[in-house]
Structure formats: C-alpha cells, structure tokens
C-alpha cells in the first residue's frame, strides 16, 4: 500500500475548494456552460487531490516497464530509444511508391509504413471492373508477388522494419504472404523479418467495407490464421494491429475506440488459445493502433488508461504471467478526420498538437498526417513536412527527457480513471452480447459507430465545436496555397504487368494452388501455411479472394 493522500488532508482540501468555488470562481460569469471532452466526459474547472483521493501510487501508477504499465511499457522510454517515425506512404503502381519509401528513409524515417490501394485492401486485382477507377488510389496497387518485389526493391527488409497496412484480413492473407514469399525469394528467412501487419477483421466487416465482404466469422478466421502462422514461423512479426485509429475515423469516441480494439484482441486471444497456442507464444505480439484526435488531454489519458486496463485484462482474464504479455504497445496516427480542406496549412499545427499528445501518452511509433490529406494523397513536400514535425518534436522540444511527464496531474489521472472505467464497462457490454464477432454480426457495432458519428456531426454544426477555418475564422475566396497531388497512371501499368504474368506463369501451378486453397477453406485449415509458398506461382490476389468468397460466401453489413 502506498496511499498518496491522507483522508483528513483530502477532506480539508474539499472544504477549501468549496469555499474557493463559492467566493472566487462562481463570481466569474463564464460559466454556466458545460465543458466536456470530445467523447462527452464532463470536465471540471479545476482538479485537486480530491478527484484522485483513493490513489495508491504503487498499485495504480507504479513505474515504467512494470505493472500496471500506466507510466510506460519500457523502463527508459524515449531516453532509451525514441519512438519509431513511421510515415504512411503508398500510391500508384509499386514502381512509384518504391521511390517514395527510399526518399523517406533517406530523410530519416526509421521504418516503412506501407498502405495499399482500395482494390488491394479489399482483395481485388487492379483490372477488376469494380476496381478500375480506384487502382493506385489511397495506396499502392499490388496484384502479384512480382509487385511486392518491385515495391521493396533495393530496400534492406532484413534491417528496416515494415508495417503493412493491409487493413482487411482478405487482403492480409494474400499481401502478407507475398511479403513473406518475396523475402524468401531474396534469401531472407521469414523468422528474421521485423514488422507489423494490420489484419483487423473489424475493418473488413464494419469500418472500411467494400463490395463482397466476407462474413464476420470468416474474416475473423483469416485474421487468426495470420497470427497463428506468424507465431509459429515469424516470431519477430506483429501479426495484427487492432486498428482503433480507423474505428475512430469512422465515428467512434475515444472510449469506443479502445473498447473495440480490446474486445477484438480478447476475441483473437480466445480463438488462438482454442487452437492450442500457448498464451506466451503470441500475447506479446498483439499490437494496437490508435488515433490522436484533437482533445489533447483526453487522448493522453486514453493511452494511459489503455495500458493499465490491458495489463489487468491479460492478467485477470487470461492469467498472463510474463510481463511482456501485459504490455499495451501501440502506434499512433494523427486524426485524418480532424484535417480541414479549408486553409489547409493550418493542418500542420493540428497534427503537431496531436503528435505531442501521442508522445506525452507514451506511443511506440507515430505517423503525422500531411497538411494536404483532406484534399489529396500527400505530395513529397507535405510528407517531408510531416516527418519534420516529428523530428522537431523529438529533438527540439525536450518532451522526451522525462517519462510520462503528466503522470500525477490531478486532471490527467482523474480523466485516465474515468476513461478506464468507461472502456471496461463497454467491454463488459460486448461480453454480454457474446463477444465481438457476434456483436458485429448483429450490427451492434455498426449502429454504435454510426450513432456516434451522426451525433458528433450534429454537435459540430450546432456550433458547440468550433473548427477553425470551417465554422469560424473562415476566409472568403480562399485560394489553394499548394499544388494538388496527381495520382500517377496505375491501371495501364498494372494491366500490362498482369497480362504478361498471366502469359508467362504456369497455369498448371496456379490451378493447383487455387485448388489446394479451396480444399483448405473447406477443411478449416490455416490458409497462410499454404499461401506463403503458393503466391510464388504468381497467382493474383483477386484469384485468391475469388476462391475465398466462393467457399465462405459474402455478407451484407447492416450499415443503414
């Protein structure tokens, strides 16, 4: 026990504060207005020990690198090693994105963060009728393992860690297999590869849905297949990154964001245990991806609350004993949804404050959005400015000098406690619905997010949420202060490659891979075991997805 505040002191502070409120504060008239966080948690004018009175330092806070990890997952945090500066990049054909990766690495980025285009993320080839207008948009187009070769050509993937933003499991099962298969073709063993794949079934079935979605239970199965495969063969790879960021972008509150990633990780953990994997073989590799939205203190409290709650869940629910299995490690992206198309250079400031909250909250890696993202894919200049924002934060502000600098703040600790309680309550609600996969199938998650998104928009429009340049401080006759990124020609490039590959590859080999895949689907086997080798036949992503949809069926998500 190490209670921080004596009961009699707290009582005295409570009385004095009441007096202050009566005599001083309420004389200022500001303030019948209700103050709330972005997620709707009421905020007081002033916090004192009273608000965190029961705090037991050793039980509730402790030390970095030790339970409950609220002060940080590593003992030295940024003094030992700065966060990874992982700027998202991907557009057009792989030939173009390869150049951007090399540019960012030359400029000091410390990891690759590769995003794929809409068709690739949804399991379509560039040439599919549904895909043609979107080839190369929002990310890089990948159709076969040959595209993966081109994408990482000349990049030392045995030394640089790579994040594959594969989003949907239907994409991940092919694209991660291509990444691994390509490494093997380069004589790099997959157990030497470091990186992360996103692989989140909630993206496929709720958040970034597309035509022909796999039913939730199968999307979830594919996600677990990749985790199981990596656990067995690629132990340095984080096989899943629960994408709370994307949940938040589609409308979640901070509470829903963290509750849903945790419910997702709980569901996967249960499934992997059911498959016979020991907890300590995979638990430390489950990683998380959160948003840094505009409510500065709420975001910091969110990261801290997530760390403490996750360590409790792993310990109490699953009996985890290894400290590494209790750690909530996460990547952060600044909130794309907060960017404005109006006066877009203002977005540099927005993203900088948001990145600061991520770093004060102890993130393991950060992506800062570019100022032009409400208008187009980032240009070289806007990506560079975003990277420099990180470097300024790291090198000039001194925020890295001490660990968890806001720990002990009455306000931040109180908000952390409140967020943790609300997140825990929502996880319990999902438990009552039968777990996350069932909650998705019933449309409960869809409704939760859509309701929040609608309420948020109405609040913005009611004037309760000022957005500079949009509903206040507008400029009339605004002129765009920079060039818009124009997507390089993609479809023709991909079409040509696909045509050549289909002519040159062995039709017999491809047929065998697809036949084996269909049988594996029917028998409930782990598909990645088959595909890492299978993709070397130059089978296309679309061909693989076709087999999956044929055997698993498709689902219409209950969105509206």
């Amino acid at each position, binding site marked *: 026990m190490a209670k921080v505040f004596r009961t009699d002191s707290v009582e005295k502070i409570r009385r004095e504060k009441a007096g202050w409120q009566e005599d001083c504060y309420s004389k200022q008239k500001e303030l019948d207005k209700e103050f709330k966080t972005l997620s709707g948690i009421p905020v007081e004018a002033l916090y004192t020990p009273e608000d965190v009175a029961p705090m037991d330092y050793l039980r509730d806070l402790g030390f970095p690198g030790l339970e409950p990890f609220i002060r940080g997952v590593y003992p030295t945090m940024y003094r030992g090693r700065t966060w990874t500066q992982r700027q998202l990049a991907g557009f057009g054909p792989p030939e173009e994105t390869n150049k951007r990766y090399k540019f960012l690495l030359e400029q000091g980025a410390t990891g690759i963060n590769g995003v794929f285009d809409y068709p690739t993320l949804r399991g379509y080839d560039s040439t599919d009728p549904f895909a043609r207008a979107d080839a190369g948009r929002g990310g890089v187009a990948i159709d076969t393992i040959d595209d993966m070769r081109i994408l990482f050509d000349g990049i030392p993937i045995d030394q640089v860690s790579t994040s594959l933003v594969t989003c949907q499991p239907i994409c991940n099962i092919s694209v991660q297999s291509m990444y691994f298969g390509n490494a093997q073709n380069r004589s790099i063993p997959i157990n030497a590869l470091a990186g992360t794949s996103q692989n989140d079934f909630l993206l496929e079935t709720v958040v970034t849905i597309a035509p022909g979605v796999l039913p939730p239970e199968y999307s979830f199965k594919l996600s677990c297949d990749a985790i199981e495969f990596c656990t067995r063969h690629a132990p340095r790879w984080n096989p899943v990154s629960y994408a709370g960021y994307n949940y938040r972008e589609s409308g979640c509150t901070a509470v829903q964001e963290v509750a849903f990633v945790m419910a997702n990780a709980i569901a996967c953990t249960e499934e992997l245990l059911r498959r016979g994997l020991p907890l300590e073989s995979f638990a430390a590799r489950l990683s998380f991806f959160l948003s840094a939205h505009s409510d500065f203190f709420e975001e910091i409290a969110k990261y801290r609350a997530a760390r403490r709650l996750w360590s409790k869940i792993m310990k109490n629910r699953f009996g985890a004993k290894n400290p590494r299995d209790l750690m909530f490690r996460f990547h952060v992206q600044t909130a794309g949804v907060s960017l404005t198309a109006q006066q877009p250079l203002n977005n540099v400031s927005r993203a900088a404050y948001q990145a600061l909250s991520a770093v004060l909250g102890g993130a393991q890696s950060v992506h800062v959005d570019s100022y032009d993202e409400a208008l187009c894919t980032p240009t070289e200049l806007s990506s560079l400015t975003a990277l420099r924002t990180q470097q300024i934060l790291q090198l000039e502000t001194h925020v890295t000098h001490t660990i968890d600098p806001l720990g002990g703040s009455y306000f931040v600790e109180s908000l952390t406690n409140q967020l943790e309680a609300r997140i825990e309550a929502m996880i319990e609600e999902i438990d009552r619905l039968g777990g996350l996969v069932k909650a998705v199938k019933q449309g409960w998650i869809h409704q939760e997010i859509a309701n929040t998104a609608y309420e948020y928009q109405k609040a913005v429009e009611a004037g309760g949420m000022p957005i500079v340049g949009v509903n206040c401080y507008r400029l009339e006759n605004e002129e*765009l202060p920079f060039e818009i990124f124009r997507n390089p020609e993609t479809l023709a490039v991909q079409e040509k490659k696909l045509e050549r590959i289909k002519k040159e590859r062995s039709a017999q080999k491809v047929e065998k891979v697809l036949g084996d895949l269909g049988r594996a689907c029917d028998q409930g086997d782990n598909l990645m075991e088959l595909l890492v080798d299978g993709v070397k036949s130059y089978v296309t992503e679309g061909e693989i997805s076709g087999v999956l949809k044929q055997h698993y069926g498709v689902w219409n998500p209950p969105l509206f």
Partner: protein
Amino acid sequence: MAKNKRVVMARLGMDAHWRGSIIVARALRDAGMEVIYLGNQLPEGIVQSAIQEDADVVGLSSLSGNHMILAPEVVKLLRARGAGDITVVLGGTVPPDEIAPLKEAGIAEVFGPGTPLEKIVAFIEGINHKVSE
C-alpha cells in the same frame, strides 16, 4: 401534396469511407425523405437502382479520388436511359479545380469536406422539377 423525395445513395466504386454518406443519409431521412442506401456500386448498378426506385435524386459519395471517372458516367447512363431528370449530386474529397468540370458533366452540386448537413438537405429539398410532375 408533394410526395416525399426519394434519394438513392451510393459510394462510388471501391471507396471505403462510409461515414459521410451514412451521416448524410440519416440527415435526409430525418428531414422526411426516403433514402435507399446502396453501399458500394458501379455506375451501372446505381443507375439501375435509381430508375427502379423511381428516385428523384442520386447522391454519390467518394473520398477515394475516383469521382472524375465514375460520377460523370452516372449522369451519362441516366441520360442514355431517359432518366436525365434525376438529379445527381456528389459529396466527398473533391479538389476545388475539379468542381467546374464535374458540373459541366451534369453533376448538379458538389459538397466538399466541411459542408454543413443543413446545406445538403436544403439543396435536395429545393430540387423540384421532378416532384412537381
């Protein structure tokens, strides 16, 4: 009495972002319109549904950048099927210099990021050529 407006809404092609289109769909519904939400569709599918549903308005959404290819195609197909009186509007991330060519192609209005719901609802309510038939 004027009948309630019927609005067919769709996300173009592969575009994944549903937040904007769902929020607009709800706002239109709350304003008393009938909304048929299609999800992701290609122009052909959108036009078929619009005609079948006897829509007054087609609301397209895209944040992926595919709008310059797919949105004008919707207008073209509607006109080719004798349904050119159905108004087509578009919402999403549209760079400012693409608005004029879209309007030339027959898109009645383009709602960029940050457009108030009120404005979208008012615009659609204000369309009257078909309802008055």
